[in-house]
């Protein structure tokens, strides 16, 4: 059998490409030669005609420039510029002479007549320019201008006209040659195009034949492949095996057989694999749900969590960790744990890792920073164990505990500092005083406790309100702090009481200096809400070790000294001394003895007459308390009343006095109709619960008409708790009891008090009556008080009347009632009953002598 001749694809392709390439090369070479020849002809034509034109143009330009120089020359007004211009003109003449000479030679070859004319005109123009240059050098600019205008103008125009004429001729010749050259070039281009078309046609036919053969056989092969892909049976592949496509067909047949065999095996394996995948997917879903829950717990945990490999890098941080530290996860992840743990002491970090790696728990609370923000955090580092109990990772939790710390610090602060003024409070002050004493004890020095109480502060607080009082206290605190030394401690003990603890003193005088600075600091008025307020300090000073060695003793003695300062007139300081101590002891002694004095009947009531001013008739009496102690003797009311007021005994004493007075009144009213009994009531008694009921009870018990009982209260009572006081006064007024304001003039002497409260009587203080004869201001006040009371319909009682002159004056002012030693001293009930009830005192005569009952000396 004869095998077909084998002619492979590669030889076929090579033969085709070589043939086509040779054909293209022949076409291109031929076309290139044609175009080159055409371009050369065009360039030659252009050069032959354009160059002379360019030279002509250059010549015309230079000639124009020369003419400009010439024109400028005659009009230069600067001698230095003129010299320069002449030089340029001469240089330009020389250059142009050369240029025109060369051009004339060229021109002479084609147009000898024009060349001759050009040379002639130039010679003429050049000679005139030379003359101008010479004249300009001699500064004869008028002659220069004359030549410019009349001499050189015509030669210049002649040259330009000639050059223009030559230029026009040259341009016409150039245009003709250029058109011919472009026509030739167009013909060559058409020949080349025809050649390209023939070559392209030959190549196309060859490619079409080869392509058709190859494509048909590949189509058969493709058809069998598609059937194999779709599982359709196909028969024999009818492709002759004389080239590579035939080889491919045979190989494809063998491969088809193998594919069918393997396909069967693969289907079985696929079924098994799908079953296993479904089982595994179910397991993964379950694990994934657990993982998601765990992840949410960690992600949403408010505590910052960081997980790092032991001895390795950080693997995970939750959002809370980033929020707390102010760092992004990118800054932390894959960083060594030691570098991101961020503790102040590097040793702490080392220790933390050691403890946690060893299975322990390391904890730390520390201040930290988040950018510019400071915060407190709690760190906790421990190991994460795997299923076999081995530490594989470290878990660092980070918690922002700023809020807790702030609360804790706030509590601590509130425990030691006064929230209003920011000064140390009593507890901290005691601690500081203890420190000062300890230091003085150690150093052999001195320390001072300076107890300060503000004068008149309560009035401010009561009249202007607590808000104003608080503001004043804050300002006072600032001034105190400003007045003391740097090491001294200023504390607020409460209310308007402050304490200064001065340590490191060598002598008590140093404490005096501090006290004087404090007093000086109060000289300027305080301004609160545009209102000017005055307050002053009363300071008591106790020195360690002279006045006590224990803080409590020093504090108590300073307090006593402060009272001494108050009693001495306020706005001053007093050192604690023996007399204060003694006075304190005396007060204690009085207090001790006063307890039970009532039961022991050591107290009694005396009565002082109230006299009608115009008639001298006795209209009543004021009941006054006296104490005759078996141990202390006759104790002045000024000594025991304050003690009783202070320790609360005044309430019982006051009740007893009221009852005594009412009992006495019940008897005397039977002897003198309308007899009035005045009883002093202390502030504490007045505000004691059940006071009004007690008055009512007395009135009822002793059947005393209420209008014959007069309750005397001091003006100071009205300054505090006005609403409460007003209510009590209203109740008393409702009972029908007379109300009297005692000691008028010593306090605020407020007209509004008299108008707002239901008083019946005003008692002018004895201090004004005493000097009424000599002191004009006292006299004026008494007159004003009387007029005011009259205007308000109140009765006036003048206390402390001692002389006839005072009586006469007061009568002259229409004063209603008088009281004083002019009429006698307070006496016991029996003496009063004998002497004064239903009695009358003689009024002074104009010569100063009295009438009626004689004056009873004190």
């Amino acid at each position: 059998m004869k095998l077909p001749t084998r002619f492979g694809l590669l030889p076929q392709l090579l033969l085709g490409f070589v043939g086509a390439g040779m054909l293209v090369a022949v076409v291109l070479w031929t076309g290139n030669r044609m175009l080159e020849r055409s371009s050369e002809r065009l360039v030659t034509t252009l050069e032959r005609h354009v160059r002379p034109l360019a030279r002509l143009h250059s010549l015309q330009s230079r000639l124009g420039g020369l003419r400009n120089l010439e024109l400028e020359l005659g009009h230069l007004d600067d001698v230095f510029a003129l010299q320069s211009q002449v030089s340029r003109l001469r240089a330009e003449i020389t250059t142009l002479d050369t240029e025109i000479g060369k051009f004339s030679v060229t021109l002479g070859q084609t147009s000898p007549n024009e060349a001759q004319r050009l040379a002639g005109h130039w010679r003429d123009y050049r000679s005139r320019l030379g003359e101008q240059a010479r004249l300009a050098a001699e500064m004869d600019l008028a002659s220069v201008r004359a030549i410019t205008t009349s001499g050189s103008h015509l030669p210049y125009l002649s040259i330009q006209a000639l050059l223009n004429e030559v230029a026009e001729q040259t341009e016409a010749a150039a245009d003709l040659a250029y058109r011919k050259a472009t026509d030739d070039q167009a013909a060559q281009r058409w020949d080349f195009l025809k050649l390209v078309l023939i070559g392209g046609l030959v190549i196309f036919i060859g490619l079409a034949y080869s392509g058709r053969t190859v494509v048909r056989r590949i189509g058969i092969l493709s058809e069998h492949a598609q059937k194999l892909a779709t599982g359709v049976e196909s028969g024999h592949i009818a492709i002759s095996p004389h080239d590579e496509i035939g080889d491919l067909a045979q190989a494809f047949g063998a491969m088809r057989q193998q594919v069918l065999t393997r396909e069967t095996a693969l289907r079985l394996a696929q079924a098994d694999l799908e079953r296993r995948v479904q089982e595994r997917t179910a397991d993964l879903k379950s694990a994934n749900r657990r993982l998601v829950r765990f992840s949410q717990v960690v992600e949403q945990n408010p505590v910052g969590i960081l997980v790092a490999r032991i001895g390795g890098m950080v693997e995970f941080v939750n959002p809370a960790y980033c929020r707390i530290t102010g760092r992004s996860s990118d800054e932390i992840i894959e960083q060594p744990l030691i570098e991101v743990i961020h503790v102040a002491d590097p040793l702490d970090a080392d220790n933390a890792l050691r403890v946690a790696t060893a299975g322990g728990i390391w904890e730390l609370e520390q201040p930290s920073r988040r950018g510019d923000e400071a915060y407190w955090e709690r760190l906790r580092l421990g190991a994460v164990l795997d299923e076999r109990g081995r530490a594989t990772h470290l878990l660092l939790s980070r918690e922002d505990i700023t809020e807790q710390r702030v609360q804790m610090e706030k509590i601590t602060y509130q425990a030691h500092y006064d929230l209003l003024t920011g000064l140390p409070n009593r507890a901290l002050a005691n601690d500081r005083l203890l420190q000062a004493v300890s230091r003085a004890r150690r150093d052999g020095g001195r320390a001072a406790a300076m107890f300060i109480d503000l004068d008149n502060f309560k009035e401010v607080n009561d009249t202007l309100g607590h808000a104003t009082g608080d503001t004043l206290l804050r300002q006072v605190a600032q001034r105190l702090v400003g007045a003391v030394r740097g090491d001294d401690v200023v504390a607020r003990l409460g209310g308007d009481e402050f304490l200064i603890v001065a340590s490191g003193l060598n002598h008590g005088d140093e404490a005096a200096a501090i006290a004087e600075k404090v007093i000086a600091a109060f000289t300027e008025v305080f301004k609160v809400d545009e209102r000017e307020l005055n307050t002053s300090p009363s300071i008591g000073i106790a020195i360690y070790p002279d006045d006590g060695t224990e803080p409590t003793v020093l504090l108590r003695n300073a307090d006593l000294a402060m009272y001494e300062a108050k009693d001495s007139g306020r706005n001053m300081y007093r050192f604690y001394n023996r007399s204060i101590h003694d006075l304190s002891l005396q007060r204690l002694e009085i207090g001790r003895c006063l307890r039970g004095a009532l039961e022991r009947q050591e107290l009694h009531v005396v009565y002082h007459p109230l006299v009608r001013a115009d008639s001298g008739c006795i209209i009543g009496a004021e009941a006054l308390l006296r104490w005759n102690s078996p141990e202390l003797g006759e104790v002045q009311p000024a000594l025991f009343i304050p003690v009783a007021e202070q320790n609360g005994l005044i309430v019982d004493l006051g009740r007893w006095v009221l009852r005594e007075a009412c009992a006495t009144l019940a008897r005397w009213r039977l002897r003198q109709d309308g007899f009035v009994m005045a009883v002093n009531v202390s502030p504490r008694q007045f505000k004691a619960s059940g006071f009004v009921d007690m008055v009512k009870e007395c009135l009822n018990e002793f059947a005393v008409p209420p209008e014959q009982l007069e309750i005397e209260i001091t003006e100071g009572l009205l300054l505090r708790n006005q609403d409460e006081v007003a209510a009590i006064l209203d109740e008393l007024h409702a009972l029908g009891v007379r109300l009297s304001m005692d000691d008028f003039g010593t306090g605020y002497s407020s007209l509004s008090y008299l108008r707002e409260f239901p008083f019946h009587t005003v008692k002018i203080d004895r201090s004004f009556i005493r000097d009424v004869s000599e002191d004009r201001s006292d006299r004026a006040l008494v007159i004003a008080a009387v007029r005011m009371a009259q205007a308000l319909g109140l009765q006036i009682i003048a206390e402390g009347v001692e002389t006839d002159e005072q009586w006469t004056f007061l009568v002259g002012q229409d004063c209603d009632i008088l009281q004083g030693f002019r009429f006698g001293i307070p006496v016991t009930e029996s003496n009063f009953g004998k002497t004064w009830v239903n009695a009358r005192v003689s009024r002074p005569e104009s010569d100063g002598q009295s009438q009626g009952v004689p004056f009873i000396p004190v």
Partner: protein
Amino acid sequence: MGWTMRRKGLACLLLAAMLPAFGTASAGEQGERALAAVKQLLDSGAVPRNASIKVAFKSGNIAALLGPELELQKEWEQRSGVMITAKVIPQQPALQNIKANPDVDLTVARTHEFPDLLEQGLVEDLSPLLKEFGFRIDGAPPQGYVRPRLQGFFGDKVVAIPADGDVLILYLRRDLLESPAERAAFRKAYGRDLAVPVTWQEYDQLAKFFHRPEKGLYGTVEQRERDTAWMFWLPRYLSQGAPYRQLFDDRLKPMIDSPAGVAATESYINTVRHSAPEILGDGKDYSYTAPIFMQGKAFSIIFTIAGAKLFNASGSAVRGKFIAAALPGNRVGGKLVRRNLPIYGNNLVVSSQGAQRKLAFLFTMWLTDPDNSLRTVGVRGGFTDPFRWNHLADQRIRDLYTPEALAVFAKEWPVALPPGTGLPGDGDYLAALNQNLWLAASGKITAAEAMKRTSREWEGFTGRQDRDRHLAWLKIFNAGFRNPDSGETSKK
């Protein structure tokens, strides 16, 4: 970066150490050091690579300062890499030019303008720059600047780099002076030999003698137009006293309303009678007077050394027929006192408002280098005249100006004094003087009236100023009259 900084610092130290060693300029060296300093500034980044210098010159200065066909500008740009942007400014005071062109780095100013420029802070004190780059303003021959303390300093401050030398020189017709017929006629008329005048009276006598307008010859064509009157009056006034006559006393009271002032003014106005008819016309400056002398129509003229360049040029009718002579003076106490002054002077000033002050300064040092400046001095059509001692020895310049004229030029500098009033507002003071001198020269007022009016107006100007400050300025200015020039250097 640290190494770069250290390397730059080291380079600066080396440069600073080397520069003082070469502080005194020698031919070509000053320019090379200026270029090296520019390179250092560019390399260190202190000046950006694309920085350029903005210069503003008057039209005649462009060629004179940047060279014919701008050849010096091209060379500077090629060698330094720094471009120059030049603009032309009008012929007006530097004060107005600098104010009108705030972006300009470098311009020119006349010597008498320094007080105004300094007072208004318009120009840079160059002393720190000289120190920084190790240059000295040397006044010593054979290379130094001519009288730098007179042309570039105000007090201790270096205000400008001199780039022109403009003392006055008397030019006379040699052919007439040497003519036997003229000599005989002069002896007959005045009883003495016809000779170069040494006093202003003799000068006036010669002008009168040779004044023959009917024959086309004027006795003198010394400028008498209004705007430059002070330049020709001041030498006459300064030489009225020995060693010189001051304009103000030590309390700022003008001293011109005096016999000395009247005498100087009369000498000034006397020439009008022997001069060209239009000599008083506005704008009739040297461009009017110099051609008259050049055409042989005048016996004498007083002009700067530039006159020699013009009169010696080809085409000049007086070429080879004129001589240059020292300026006349006055006899005081039996001794001749002569005083001269730089009247124009194109000194280079660095604007304090310029962006590239250091580069501008270095350019001036390069431009005024002994060698480089030879290429600008004597350029025809330019204003720049010799301003370094080495210029006087250069053959090309000697041919241009004549050796005789250069010798007189050298002789005049030692008697030269600072021009102007030395006070802020100098322009106003000089304008008042110019106006009154012009009125006197026109015959509208007498010389005495001119001095009285000027004195009154000057007192008015001074009264409107801070007198103490003016006194301080005057003190600095007067110190300039006393300072010697030889061997002057800038303060280190």
